[in-house]
């Protein structure tokens, strides 16, 4: 006799529920969680370093930085912001449990922005909800403007696209317009931030965008929001 057990559930339903719970907890703390995705070498660490330098003491930011091996990125960021290195030992993406352990390993205190620098990879990280409020994909000008179409899920699941290393535009065949158009075909609501972390170009606009998102998501209005912007 054959027995049929109907399930009809997403395999990732439990992981999603756990990510939602972490997101709610971070919302209660008014800590905006930003998951940063890109290929290796696109400039995630440089972007976060430039963000920390721009804000200085005006914002409390912390970083969880994921890598397959070494703590080199954490060493770069530690002088600028509380940082915990998450080493995956070969795994190609971060998962929620690693992120939660990293969050608990950070020094206690209020944090306005928790950045998760994911393992450099445009494929696997896009399938894992880390309880973030905002997902940002970084695409550098040296990678080529055809990448959004080749890695659609990373762009489809992100709310913002940072086009990094624009100081190299005179030297590489990369069209910001073509990359933007391609990415917006996949995710029409994408905010696009071309910048050069090395020279600080576009960093202020990027940081203002982060402030605006934090105010919008946590419903911070009026004078309180203006104070945050100042």
């Amino acid at each position: 006799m054959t027995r049929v057990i109907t399930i009809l559930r997403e395999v990732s339903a439990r992981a999603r529920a756990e990510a939602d719970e972490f997101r709610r907890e971070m919302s209660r703390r008014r800590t905006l969680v930003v998951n940063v995705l890109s290929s290796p070498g696109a400039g995630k660490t440089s972007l976060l370093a430039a963000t920390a330098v721009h804000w200085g003491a005006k914002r409390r930011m912390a970083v969880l930085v994921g890598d397959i091996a070494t703590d080199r990125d954490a060493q770069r960021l530690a002088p600028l912001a509380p940082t915990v290195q998450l080493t995956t030992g070969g795994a190609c993406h971060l998962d929620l449990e690693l992120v939660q352990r990293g969050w608990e390993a950070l020094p206690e205190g209020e944090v306005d922005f928790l950045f998760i620098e994911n393992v450099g990879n445009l494929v696997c990280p896009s399938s894992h909800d880390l309880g973030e409020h905002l997902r940002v994909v970084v695409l550098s000008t040296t990678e080529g403007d055809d990448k959004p179409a080749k890695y659609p899920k990373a762009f489809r699941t992100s709310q913002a696209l940072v086009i990094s290393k624009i100081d190299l535009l005179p030297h590489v065949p990369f069209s910001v317009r073509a990359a933007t158009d391609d990415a917006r075909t996949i995710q029409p609501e994408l905010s696009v931030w071309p910048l050069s972390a090395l020279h600080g170009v576009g960093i202020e606009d990027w940081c203002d965008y982060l402030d605006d998102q934090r105010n919008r998501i946590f419903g911070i209005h009026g004078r309180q929001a203006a104070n945050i912007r100042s």
Partner: protein
Amino acid sequence: MQVGPLSGVEPVQLASAWRQLCGPAALEEAQLEIEEVALEVRCQQCQGVFRPESFSFRCPACDSTQTEVVAGEGVILDNILLDELQQGVPQ
């Protein structure tokens, strides 16, 4: 199982992983049936449902960018079929 194009799961690799799992678990007769579902998107403006070509999520009917994925985003465990033995659970 239903597997969609935006799930991040490749059906051929899922089937291979299944075989590797079943061997050591002495479940050689267990079968995995994978249904590849198409990506379907609903336009929130004109309510039309379309299947995006080349992951273009702009509505082909009204050009709206306000669209939502209604199918093909995940991996869904549909149902489990168990052949029950008359004598009960084998020792």
